[in-house]
Every structure is written in structure tokens, then in C-alpha cells.
């Protein structure tokens, strides 16, 4: 009996002590939130991909403008590896004080935690999405002399000769793989997938060298070849047409509901105080919609599509649902 009473008193005491500690922390935190960002304390943007790539280039364009808005220096740090997983882990686990946030791109950030074999140490709720910057839809392209001219032709061809048409992806469980798997599931067509795990340049080389028949890849990866007339895009997997290929129909227009895009935005680690997150979101929304930045992003072959933190979060959740249902298909042999 005595013991139980002691336990009750002790826990009550602990509770009080804990609450007051919380209050103190919150009080101190508030002051820190208001002063954020402290002048002279740099903010790090973690980019999970190689320097010079699209994710890195976009961030390096944004950083100087963001510096002006926030009044402190901003450093872009590349932590690469495992298809972005290393960098995403670093962002998710960073101290949520607003001095570290990261570039988050889907499908990589969405897919990594879905497959337990990859041992990802983060999930969607470990991030607080701040803003989306660009969208890069999947495009299906053929050689200029191909009889396939529209998404309909492509689907018909995949039904007529199941598995005969060689289609590139940039590796297993990449955006391209999910996109084609989704199309197969929704239409009953079947393609012979060739996974170029070394990336899009290898896939493009094999396609131009006529070793494979159809190239599937992000719009930004094929703009230059399309301009040269080396390949012909036939369909876009987005809700609207790409500004780079205004004459190419979307799959949706032709009755196939497949939307597969790479989107790249910025997220802070979850738990970052609201006041700080809002300041970051505000600064990002101004910079990302600045006409000068928008024009520079377009020069890179990327389609700027700003989304607020809330919209980005919703888009992310939607993609997560889609990929979760597709994952078993991509593992079938």
C-alpha cells in the first residue's frame, strides 16, 4: 500500500516537473522562433543527389535569392546515395530548428520507405513539406519513323504483341517503372521492360542506337533529343500538357488515367516549430514564384509548378497511395 501511494505521489511530482519543464522549453523556444534566422548562422539545404543534377541545380538557383529574403547565408550540401535515401534520412533526422531543410523529390522519397527491404529510416510523416518547385512528367517517346503516334497506338501495340515492344526504364522501382506498370495494369497491355539501372543517359543511348524500341523518361531528359528530331514524344503522363511539348497529348486526354510525374520540392524535418516553418514557407513561396527564378528553371528544361506546403503534402500522400498499390506489381517477374 505504502509503495503504491509513494508511486502515485512520485508520478504526480514528475508530471508537474515535466510540465513546467515543457512550459520553460516552449517559452525559450518562442523567443528563438521569433529571432529565427539568427544572422550569421547559416541554413543548410540538403540535396540528396549529385551536384549538377536537376535537383541540385534548382536548389543552387534558389539559394542566393533565399539568402536575400532570410538575411543569413544558405549552403547547399550534397548527401548522395541509395537513390536519395541517404540525403532524405539526413533531412528527416536533422534538428528541427529551421537551420536545416532538404530537397525532397518524388517518387524517390515516397517509394524508399514503402519497401522494407531497403531499410529506410524515415517515412512521410517525418517531413514537413514546405513548398513544391517543379514538376517533370513522364513522357513516352518513339523513333521518328515509328508507326506509334498517340498514347492509343502505344496501348494497342502493347495489347497486340504482349511483351514484344522493348521499353526503357531508368531502373527498378523508378518513376518510369511505376508509370509503365500502372499503364499495363489499367489497360491490359504488356511491354518488355529493359531496366537501365545506370540512369537515363544509358537508356537514351540504347534507344538512339536502336537497341530498344520505346523510351520512357522525364520530359527534361528528352527535350534536347526531341528538338533535334531524334525522337518523337507521343504522350505525357500528367493532368495537363507540357509547355515544352504543347502538341503532344496527355494520356488522360485519350482516356487513360495514368499520371506519373517527378515533383521536386523542399521539406523540413517534422517537428520544426510552426512559426519557423511559416517563415520558411513564405520565403520559399516568394522566391519560387519570382519570375526571374521561374525563367531560369524553364531554361533547365524543368516545368515550374509551385505548390504551398499544404498542397505539396496532399500531392505526396496521393502519390504514396498510388505507389503502395503498384509496388507488388513492380516486383512480379
Amino acid at each position, binding site marked *: 500500500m505504502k509503495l503504491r501511494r509513494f508511486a502515485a505521489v512520485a508520478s504526480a511530482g514528475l508530471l508537474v516537473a515535466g510540465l513546467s519543464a515543457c512550459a520553460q522549453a516552449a517559452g525559450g523556444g518562442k523567443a528563438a522562433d521569433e529571432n529565427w534566422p539568427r544572422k550569421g548562422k547559416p541554413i543548410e539545404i540538403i540535396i540528396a543527389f*549529385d*551536384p*549538377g*543534377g536537376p535537383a*541540385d*541545380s534548382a536548389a*543552387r*538557383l534558389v539559394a*542566393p535569392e533565399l539568402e536575400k529574403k532570410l538575411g543569413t547565408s544558405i549552403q547547399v*550540401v*550534397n*548527401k*548522395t*546515395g*541509395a*537513390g536519395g*535515401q*541517404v540525403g532524405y*534520412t539526413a533531412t528527416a533526422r536533422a534538428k528541427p530548428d529551421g537551420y536545416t531543410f532538404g530537397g525532397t523529390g518524388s517518387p524517390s522519397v515516397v517509394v524508399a520507405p514503402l519497401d522494407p*527491404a*531497403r*531499410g*529506410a*529510416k524515415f517515412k512521410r510523416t517525418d517531413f514537413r513539406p514546405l513548398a513544391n518547385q517543379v514538376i517533370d512528367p513522364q513522357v513516352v517517346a518513339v523513333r521518328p519513323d515509328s508507326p506509334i503516334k498517340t498514347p492509343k497506338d502505344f496501348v494497342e501495340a502493347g495489347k497486340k504483341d504482349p*511483351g514484344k515492344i*522493348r521499353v526503357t526504364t531508368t*531502373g*527498378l*522501382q523508378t518513376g518510369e517503372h511505376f508509370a509503365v506498370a500502372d499503364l499495363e495494369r489499367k489497360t491490359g497491355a504488356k511491354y*518488355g*521492360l*529493359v*531496366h*537501365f*539501372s*545506370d540512369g537515363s*543517359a*544509358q537508356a*537514351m*543511348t*540504347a534507344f*538512339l*542506337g*536502336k*537497341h*530498344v524500341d520505346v523510351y520512357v523518361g522525364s520530359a527534361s531528359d528528352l*527535350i*534536347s*533529343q526531341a*528538338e*533535334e528530331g*531524334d525522337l518523337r514524344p507521343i504522350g505525357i503522363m500528367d493532368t495537363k500538357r507540357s509547355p515544352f511539348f504543347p502538341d503532344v497529348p496527355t494520356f488522360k486526354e485519350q482516356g487513360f488515367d495514368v499520371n506519373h510525374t517527378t515533383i521536386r520540392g523542399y521539406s523540413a524535418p517534422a517537428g520544426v516549430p510552426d512559426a519557423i516553418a511559416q517563415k520558411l514557407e513564405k520565403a520559399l513561396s516568394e522566391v519560387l514564384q519570382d519570375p526571374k527564378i521561374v525563367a*531560369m528553371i524553364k*531554361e*533547365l*528544361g524543368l516545368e515550374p509548378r509551385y505548390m504551398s506546403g499544404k498542397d505539396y503534402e496532399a500531392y505526396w500522400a496521393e502519390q504514396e497511395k498510388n505507389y503502395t498499390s503498384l509496388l507488388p506489381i513492380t*516486383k512480379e517477374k
Partner: protein
Amino acid sequence: MSVINDLLGGFATALSLANLMYALIGCVLGTAIGVLPGIGPVAGVALLIPVTLNLEPTSAIIMLAAIFYGTQYGGTITSVLLNTPGESASAITTIDGYAMTKKGRAGAALTIAAYGSFVGGTAATVGLVVAAKPLGSLGLAVGPPEFFSMMVLGLALLVCLAGDSMTKALISGVIGLMIAMVGIDPVEGAPRFTFGNEFLLDGVSFVAVIVGLFGLSEILNTGTERPGKVETPGFRALLPNRTEFRRSNPAVARGTVVGFLLGLIPGMTGSVSALLSYGAEKRFSKYRDELGSGAIEGVAGPESANNAHANGALVPLFTLGIPASPTIAVLMGAFLQQGLTPGPSLFVDHSELAWGIIASLFIGNVILVILNVPLVRVWTSILSIPPAVLTALILVFMVVGSYTINFAAFDVFVMTLFGLVGLGLRKLDIPLAPLVLTLVLGPLMESKLRESLEISQGDFSIFASRPICVVLLLIALVIAATPLLRPRRRKTRSKENQHEAA
């Protein structure tokens, strides 16, 4: 002759005082960056892109190309002087380069490296000017099956890298393949030998492995007894002597051809070129028996090859808009940020600029030589630092370098571990070159085999039905079979000798 006119026009654009300044600054910056292991050409160029954003497109590309050349040469400096490759393409240079340093010929090695780089780079740029279009389609003829066959051929060169013992060379080669197995496999997407560690999902970092294998194990092996005790040589001793020059020429020529041709193939890396060039020296050089103990060919060949490769890799970029190597991908990013789309239309829409860039590649190569040959003296003076201090400095260097590969302490552990592995291999007298060869070729071979079989839907006859594949595989077979024939001949000869003696 419009090509020559265009090129002269290009020189007119590129040869302004300001542009020369940018090229000079680029070379100096690049060399400084390249000297640090970990930060190779890719990161070097990428880090400095923001600096060039506000420049004129021609100036920006000139500066980046110069940085690129500089980083590549900087990597050679540490390979030769400190036995620590600054970047992956000069890994193989350490073997003979450092052996030359031990013999007091560091200056000659560095000068020949600069000379080979210049010849390789310039010849490849000439190739780009004269025959970009046909060369571009040559690269396209190499599909996954041909690529795979080429890797088999490269692997066959392993038999040439064997020193006294074929068994030991094979052990070394298998260790390399085993390390290459780590990471996500390209067949099922399943992690292999990663022990749940996400840093291993992409495989073991190549630069960390070679810095450990070569640099750290050397330090562990010799303790503080650095052979750097050679007194700083006088200026004349810095330059290669006539024999060294004469001997390096055929190696430079072979290296240039190997590097340029492989550079045309998207996906091939500069380290593959350097390795295969080293293999070619081992196979064809008149002085092949000296390779490994400080032969000039072992520096001249690979260094020409990796620079010819770097310039050859620009052919797919200019003809097809395909970034053939990671460094070229970064350069392509720089083009895009300047509002230029690389591809044949660049020569139509922005002809002046395109030719300006080509001219600047020539200029960059020249500046590299002018800048670095006099600096060889400065670099070699590093060796006059007291051994104890120098060793400590190199250790700091290797740790910082490994860390900066990916800003992860994990790579420092990898480097340390492979230092110990390297020490063990040295004690057992197992050569390191086969390990490096299989480590570089293994992953490429695996993914290309997989892609080939996906194209053929699992049918192995795809390799027998393509002429290029058949030829390559046959050559590989011949190379692999030669050592089986040679010792028998030697044995019979020694038997004959015994007979004569009796």
C-alpha cells in the same frame, strides 16, 4: 575548309584577355581542388558552377573546362607524389607513378603526365572537330551486349596484370569482384551484403577504397620511413630525360586511342579507360616487364587515356545531347543554365559560341601544360618535408578527403578498413592492380549483362548473333588464353637448357 574557318572564328571568340584569365584561374582552382582526394572533377566543376553563372556563356564554359582539366591533373599529382589517388581516373597511375617517386623521378613522372594529358586531350578535341557526327554514331552502335563484351575483354586483361603468380592475381581480382557485389543489385533490386546499412546501398565508395588500399596501406607498411628522403632534385633532374621521353611516346599514342574510343561510348568512365590503357601497356609495351616498378609507360598511358576519354566524351554531348559521363553531365548542366541546349543544333543556332567552346578546349589544354610544368618543382618540394610530418599531413589529407566524398564519416571507416586490407595484401605479395580492375569493371559488366538479357528476353544467343560482340569476345578469349601457352613454352625452353647443360 569551313571547319577550319569556323574553328579560327572560335579562337577569335575565345582568345580574349579576359577569357585567358578565366582559363588560368580555372586551371589553378581546378588543380587545387583535384589535389584533395574525394573532391574529383565532378564535384569540382559542380561546386564552381555558381561562380560562373554571371559570366558570358563562352567565358563560363572556358572556365569550367579549365577547372575540369585542372582537377584531373591535380588528382595525378597526389597519385604520383603521395601514392594517394586524388580521383578515380588516376588510381592506376599510383602504381608506377609512386614507384618513380621512390626512384627520385617524381618530376619526370609529373611532367610526362602533363605532356600525355595534353596530347590525349588535344588529339581527342581534333577528333571532335573533324568527325563528330560519324564518331557519335559509332558510340551508338555499342548497345548493352557490345558493352558487356567489351567489359569481358577488359577483364581478360587481368591476366596481363598478373606479376609472378597468376593465382595471386586471380585472388586479387576476385576480391575486387566481391567488393563490387555490395549494394542494390540491378536484377531484383534487393540489397546485397549491406548489413542494413544504407551507406552501402550504392556499393562501397570507390575513391575511399583506393585511397585506403594504396595510400594508407603504404603508410602502414613503411611506418615513418618515407622514401621521400630524396633531396629536392635540381631543375634539370625534374624534367624527363631523353630516354623517358622516347619511351613515353608510344604509350601516349596507345593511351590516346584507347581513351578516345572508349570516351565515345556513353556510360564508360575515365577510370575504365585508364585501366584498359594500363592493361594495353602490360600487353604491348616493349618495356612491359618493368611496369609496376616505376616505368614511365605506366604513367604516360593511363594519363593520356583519361584525358582523351574526357574530351572524347564531349562527342556524344555535341552530337546527341547525351551526357556520356558524370563530369559531362555537370558540364551539360552548366550549358543549360546558360540557356544553351547541347546537341547538333548548337552549331547552327549558336555557331560562334559552339566553336568558341571547342577553341577553349584547346586553350585549356595548352594552359594546363604551361601552368603545370613549371609548378612541378613546387609540387615535388612537398617531398622535402620531414617524413614524420609528411606522413601526418598525408593522414589528415586522406581522412578529410574520404569524408568530403559524401560528407559522411562512413567513408572514413571504409578508407581505414581498406588500408588494413591493403596492408594484408602487400604482406602476402598480392598485386593490387587486378583488384582495382575488377572493382571498376564488375558493376558495369553486371548491369550490361542484365540489360542485354532483358532485351533478348533471357536468350544468351544475343551475344553470338552480333558481329561486334563476337569479335570482342574472341579477342578476350585469345588474351585470356595466352598465359596458358607461355609458361609451357618457357618450361620446355628451360628443359632444353638443362639438356644442353647435361
